[in-house]
């Protein structure tokens, strides 16, 4: 410790005094401090491992619950479409089909809308205050609870779009995809409400991706004389495409697992219908509707469906993470 306040040279100097040791006596860390340090480290380690525990717990709980159904229905669970609690015959084909169709079609609509919006609010097309306002509104849209969107879909959106769906039916009714008369809940309204829900994700991630494209690429593109949209299509979008793809995959995972709004508007059908205007079902909607009242092997069948949903979203999310980590910022 530097406690010696006397100026150097004043007073007698003891030649035997070890000046260095005297001036910088290392403070010994008291055992209590070491204990606190170690304890804190172990505490945060335990807290961090909660993530792993919860993740494993989710998988094991769902798998354990599904085992009975897996052994009695096997893989034919994926391809049969009977859902019959009386005869205890279960197949999740309708729900799996509905999950895939609603999520993929909703993305097909949301990708151009989301990427277009992201371009509109990053590429200096409009004043920055307007850009920020649009960005803020899209972010707030993501904050609206899905159950509120479901309520809105039931009472406002579905009646409002029914004329358009009727028109679709009368024009394209000869195809198997539109050959039923729209009557309230169905796959088509579910797809539209999913578009509303995944749009903010795609827009936010595309906006970040476009903002990260180095300014030099833009300058280079304009320097060789391209137009604004020439630069966007040939330089900026290709540079950002991997991150945008990652965001699209994250949105796909979200769309597949989305529950409340879809449950309220999809119709929860028990019979298979290829028509998008007819009621359908998704795995998440089936769980939300039946899990509370199910017992016996129906619980197990629902757990089996939940396991399939988990594996689907897991695969999609892993691909998304890989895309975002591996391919972003490589031009």
């Amino acid at each position: 410790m530097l406690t010696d306040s006397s100026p150097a040279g004043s007073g007698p100097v003891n030649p035997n005094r070890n000046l260095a040791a005297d001036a910088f006596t290392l403070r010994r860390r008291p055992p209590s401090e070491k204990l606190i340090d170690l304890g804190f480290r172990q505490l945060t380690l335990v807290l961090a491992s909660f993530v792993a525990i919860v993740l494993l717990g989710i998988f094991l709980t769902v798998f354990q619950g599904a085992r009975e159904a897996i052994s009695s229905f096997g893989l034919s669970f994926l391809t049969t479409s009977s859902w019959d609690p009386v005869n205890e015959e279960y197949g999740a084909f309708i729900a799996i089909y509905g999950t895939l169709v609603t999520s993929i079609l909703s993305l097909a609509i949301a990708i151009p809308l989301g990427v277009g919006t992201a371009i509109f609010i990053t590429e200096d097309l409009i004043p920055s205050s307007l850009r920020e306002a649009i960005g803020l509104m899209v972010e707030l849209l993501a904050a609206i609870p899905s159950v509120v969107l479901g309520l809105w879909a039931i009472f406002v959106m579905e009646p409002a779009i029914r004329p358009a769906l009727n028109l679709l039916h009368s024009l394209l009714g000869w195809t198997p995809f539109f050959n039923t008369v729209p009557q309230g809940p169905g796959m088509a309204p579910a797809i539209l409400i999913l578009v509303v829900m995944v749009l903010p994700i795609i827009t936010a991630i595309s906006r970040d991706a476009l903002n990260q494209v180095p300014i030099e690429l833009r300058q280079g593109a304009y320097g060789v004389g391209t137009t604004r949209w020439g630069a966007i299509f040939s330089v900026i979008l290709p540079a950002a495409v991997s991150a945008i793809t990652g965001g699209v995959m994250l949105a796909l995972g979200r769309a597949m697992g989305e529950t409340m709004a879809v449950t309220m508007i999809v119709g929860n059908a028990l019979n298979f219908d290829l028509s998008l205007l007819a009621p359908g079902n998704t795995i998440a909607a089936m769980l939300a509707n039946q899990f509370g009242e199910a017992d016996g092997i129906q619980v197990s069948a629902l757990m089996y469906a939940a396991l399939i949903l988990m594996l689907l979203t897991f695969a999609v999310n892993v691909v998304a993470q890989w895309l975002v980590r591996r391919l972003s910022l490589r031009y």
Partner: protein
Amino acid sequence: MANPSPITYDNTALFDRRPLHFDPGLRRNRLNLLFTSIAGIFAAIAVLPLVLVLFHVLMQGGRLISASLFTQLPPPPGLEGGGIGNAILGTVLVTLIASLIAIPVGVGGGIYLSEYSSRGWFAQFVSFGNDVLAGVPSIISGVFVYGIVVATRIFFDQSYSAMAGGIALSVLMLPTVIKTTDEGLKLVPQELRWGAYGVGASKFVTVTRITLPSAFTPIATGIVLSIARAAGETAPLIFTALFSPFWPEGVFNPIATMSVLIFNFAIMPYEAQNELAWAASFVLVMMILAANLLARWISRMAKV
């Protein structure tokens, strides 16, 4: 170049003699205008749902706001009037339970990832697992908590309970809290930590007195947003917290929440119930938008 001859430029051949001012009639300029308008229309379509949803929630729910809405119980099916007092209280209670679990665990886990080990295999695994957990559908976390808490009757032989609902919500909050803590701490300049060690602070003191306070803003923003998201979640609650037409009876009994109330009452064929669903949407959306603006305000305060 053996024989350098004087170079002559034929300007008419090299340069386009067209005027340099902007000509909107050119094909490329018309295409640009077309694409810009398409992007603008897309942006308008993207913003439209928010405007419409907010408009309807304000109109349909706002006109039902009264004192009795906050103080009364929902009416039995078929009767008029009543309020959503129990559901408002229930949402606050369940979200509070979720926050009390998820915030300490999440902040602690984030500290471990950022301050103690960001390279080791375990940290990599936790970080990856966190991303996976963030992608787990919310209904699955309800199934999980149903399996470990409700079906096993672990709490005093009670099946459905506010506690179970809170745990299910905390599973959803956890990844967000860990991620924002980890990222917030990584933004703290390394010099601050070196400075703290330099004056003899222990790791514990450095983290709790220097690093965490400097990262307060991003962490607080993330936590407020995750609480707002949890308050609006329904799927994990339908078969964990269930619903109750009565006032909350402690944390080990079924409890009403606004989100489950909206779900239950929206699909009922009664006008009064549908109206209460709109009123609950109004209260919920206002709470969530307020939380979002609060989060925005926190992060703006720090930048100034």
